[in-house]
């Protein structure tokens, strides 16, 4: 199943510039074209951009997973761990692929690969999310 997300993500993810590409239940793929405003002083992509892209990719995977579960009212990242394996530079298109590896009642865990234009692993992340079910924002 590949269909566009009904919304364009958070203000932050729109500002960073990751673009939703495709997904299915528990899976999301985004890409980001590295521009000057994403870089460090030495021209390499900033680690915070990678972390943001990972968070957005998992958000898409969770959205695709929970879209048919009306009791899920929201989710929020509670932990992330990222290994930066290879640098990327301006002009590179980075692809983030997020897979949900555990869906529990209150927690979800995702694996994310960020790939360089040649398909090499540029970064690897594991993110944990708190899943809110059946409680309104004010009751959390």
């Amino acid at each position, binding site marked *: 199943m590949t269909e566009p997300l009904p919304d364009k993500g958070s203000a932050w993810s729109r500002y960073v510039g990751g673009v939703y590409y495709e997904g299915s239940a528990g899976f999301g793929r985004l890409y980001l074209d590295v521009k000057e405003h994403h870089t460090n002083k030495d021209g390499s992509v900033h680690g915070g951009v990678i972390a943001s892209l990972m968070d957005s990719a998992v958000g898409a995977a969770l959205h695709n997973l929970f879209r048919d579960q009306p009791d899920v009212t929201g989710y929020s990242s509670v932990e992330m*761990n990222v*290994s930066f*394996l*290879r640098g990327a530079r301006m002009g590179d298109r980075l692809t983030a692929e997020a897979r949900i*590896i*555990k869906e529990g009642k209150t927690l979800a*865990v995702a*694996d994310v690969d960020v790939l360089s234009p040649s398909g090499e*692993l540029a970064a*690897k992340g*594991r993110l*944990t999310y708190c899943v809110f079910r059946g409680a309104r924002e004010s009751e959390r």
Partner: protein
Amino acid sequence: MTLEGHRQSPFVELIGGRLEVWEEGLVRLSLTVEERHTNPHGVMHGGVLTTLMDEALGGVIASVRGMETMWEAPHATVDMNVSFLSNARAGDEIAVEGRVLKIGRSVAFGEAEAHRKRDGALIAKGRFTFTIIRRGE
């Protein structure tokens, strides 16, 4: 690459870890969970898994770097991060596999997965960072 020159850690022997596969790029260890491996809730202690993951990843990085290179400039764990996704109990067989993500000049990265053999469930996933110690530099 063969097992020649590879030695299992005495600590892993103590807890009952068994080497199943040791080839270039893949190391698999297994363990039969016993009462002595459990915490007060009767489930396997997380430290058992991190121990096996560390051993598998140290081994798989050695398998790619080569044993001679490894003895000249050993690698040592500096960071580990593990998500515990499910559990195992006494009587369960578990398998832990280590794979290399990247080996640089001074840093190496690896990833480990632990599965419960009876149903194949992924019970833990970890990522480890190693430093490569170059003596005299």
